[in-house]
């Protein structure tokens, strides 16, 4: 695990907000020279501190007004292959994230749709027809807030 000082933590916070921020600009904010800041960013990236870059858009403005979280329980475990289910569910364009979880459900899906009738179409035609799907629990997202996390 990578050791972090306060400057590293400030850099991670800043890059989580804006992944395109330059070493020069970040260095100025944190009182570092451009090369020193660049070296720190390189070290953080090489340690795998960031697993992806995410384009943050207003999904409603792009015509996707509905986000639904689906809890999926597989019907007969052992009879259906998890790989088959995972491959099929990952191929659905409206399914943004698929998490394998332990608890009341086996999988947790984040699904986007244009509106509720569109969601019903995705649910009936794409999700309920997946191999091995048993119980489903749907919760329509009303608001979402991402927090900075434990970075000092």
């Amino acid at each position, binding site marked *: *695990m*990578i050791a972090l000082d306060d400057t590293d933590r400030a850099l*991670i916070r800043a*890059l*989580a*907000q*804006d*992944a*395109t921020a330059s070493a020069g600009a970040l260095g100025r904010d944190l009182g570092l020279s451009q090369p020193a800041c660049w070296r720190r960013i390189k070290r953080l990236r090489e*340690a*795998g*501190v*960031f*697993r*992806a*870059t*995410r*384009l*943050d*858009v*207003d*999904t409603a*403005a*792009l*015509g*996707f007004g509905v986000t639904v*979280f689906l809890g999926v329980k597989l019907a007969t475990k052992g009879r259906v292959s998890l790989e088959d289910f*995972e491959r099929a*569910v*990952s191929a659905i*364009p409206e*399914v*943004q*994230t*698929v*998490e*394998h*979880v*332990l*608890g*009341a*459900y086996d*999988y*947790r899906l*984040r699904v*986007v749709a244009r509106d509720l009738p569109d969601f019903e179409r995705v649910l009936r035609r794409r999700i309920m027809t997946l191999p091995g799907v048993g119980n489903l*629990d*749907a*919760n*329509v*997202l*009303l*608001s*979402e*807030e*991402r*927090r900075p*996390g*434990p*970075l000092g």
Partner: protein
Amino acid sequence: MLDDTDRRILRHMMAEPEMAGGALADRAGVTASTLARRLERLRTRGVLHGLRGVIDWRALGYEVEVSLRVTLDKTQPRAFDEFIAAAREVPEVLEIQTFLGQVDVRLSVIARDMAHYQQLYRDRLLTLPHIADIEALMHVARVKDREALPL
């Protein structure tokens, strides 16, 4: 409204957010100046907020990720506001989502290990106000993680 060019640019950006400006313009079949103008317009109209670095908390020593599904005591008129305000005070809470459905609020929580999680759960999470019921889903693996839109 968005036209086909905007949608094409956004589709390529979502597919490969790290792609640099020149490559993105080529891919979307527009000139660099058109791309810059379009991106600026999407930003000013509030469609495009920016590119965020997604932190891999495991690389920072947080091995446990739990999704807590909370039902609130809705006889308390301020249940949502007070619960959410208190949840914001817990640094290990990464996401706060509210829902229409069986679940009222969901918290995404990370912890260094199970002992740390147990301590967080007892001292900081179960003590949040107005909880009627709480259910945990333990994260095992991320199978798909592309918050792209089917544009």
